[in-house]
């Protein structure tokens, strides 16, 4: 309904302004309705300006800046309505080391109510995990899972993972 949308929009937008500043260490990021008069059918525009930079179209942002802005918006949505779980496949691919650290801290702050599944090549991102699964293809074309436990148990390799509940 229109009232629900307006309320969700306002809350997520306020969250977004904060998560943007957390990930960028400043700057201005927010959503704007394309049609203030007609909220029932309006689209949503995103404006983003990293610290010290002039406000321009988001298209001109760098690859890493675009990733961070999108992640800020995603986390803002989760803060309003958490998902049971969230799968992020190599969303850190365009980020430099210091931004991967910021991304990691933001995800850690969200992880008490949402199960995050991070697919990654980054050692920094991996290190944030309490559960680690390695995927291997010893036999070409056939995937196998290897569970690596990290909390309170010594690391062990298992051919099949045992349930942790």
């Amino acid at each position, binding site marked *: 309904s229109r009232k629900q949308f307006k309320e969700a929009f306002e809350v997520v937008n306020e969250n977004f302004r904060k998560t943007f500043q957390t990930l960028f260490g400043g700057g201005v990021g927010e959503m704007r309705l*394309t049609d203030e008069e007609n909220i029932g059918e309006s689209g949503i525009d995103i404006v983003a300006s990293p610290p010290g930079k002039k406000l321009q179209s*988001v298209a001109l942002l760098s690859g890493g800046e675009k990733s961070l802005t999108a992640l800020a918006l995603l986390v803002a949505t*989760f803060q309003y*309505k958490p*998902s049971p779980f969230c799968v992020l496949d190599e969303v850190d691919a365009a980020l430099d080391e210091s931004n991967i650290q910021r991304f990691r801290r933001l995800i850690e702050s969200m992880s008490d109510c949402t*199960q995050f599944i991070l697919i990654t090549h980054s050692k920094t991102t991996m290190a944030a995990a309490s559960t680690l699964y390695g995927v291997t293809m010893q036999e070409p074309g056939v995937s196998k899972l290897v569970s690596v436990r990290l909390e309170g148990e010594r690391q062990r390799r298992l051919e099949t993972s045992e349930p942790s509940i």
Partner: protein
Amino acid sequence: LKLKKLELFGFKSFCDKEELTFSGSGIASIVGPNGCGKSNVSDGISWVLGEQSAKTLRGARMQDVIFSGSRDRKPSGMATVSLTLYDPEARDGQPAVDGTINGLSYPAGKRPGEINVTRKLFSSGDSQYIINGHVSRLRDVHDLFMGTGLGPNHYAIIEQGRIGQVLSSKPLDRRAIIEEAA
């Protein structure tokens, strides 16, 4: 709802049955070399939640998700993905009963508050959705996850290379994300 287990069998590069278990919260990470099957795990999750577009799963037609054989293995006859979640508010020790989540009722599962969603696809093209052992429709699976970010507009799953899409998508597509959460 919390995530408990994912099983893949005959799905993409998972020729043999493989399983991941989760603690329901916190951070799990999936790692490995290029081409070993990490994104295929993510595809398995999208697929069992009811993904209808083969293209989103990088295929040309839906049968492309069935293990198609390798140097030493024959193709599989079917693909199965099974997702198990649980409702932490269901009380243990009581016999498993029908429950409600997200305003929808679901049939009793193996344990109280447990919800298992399974999808099968046969190379003939026949397919099935099964919720807690009861054959269901795609619609039931979508309803179960409506508004959680795991429904048909699953903003909670970001595929490889898609992180930029939020910014480059049309203003009305972004509206759909807020509407889903609302």
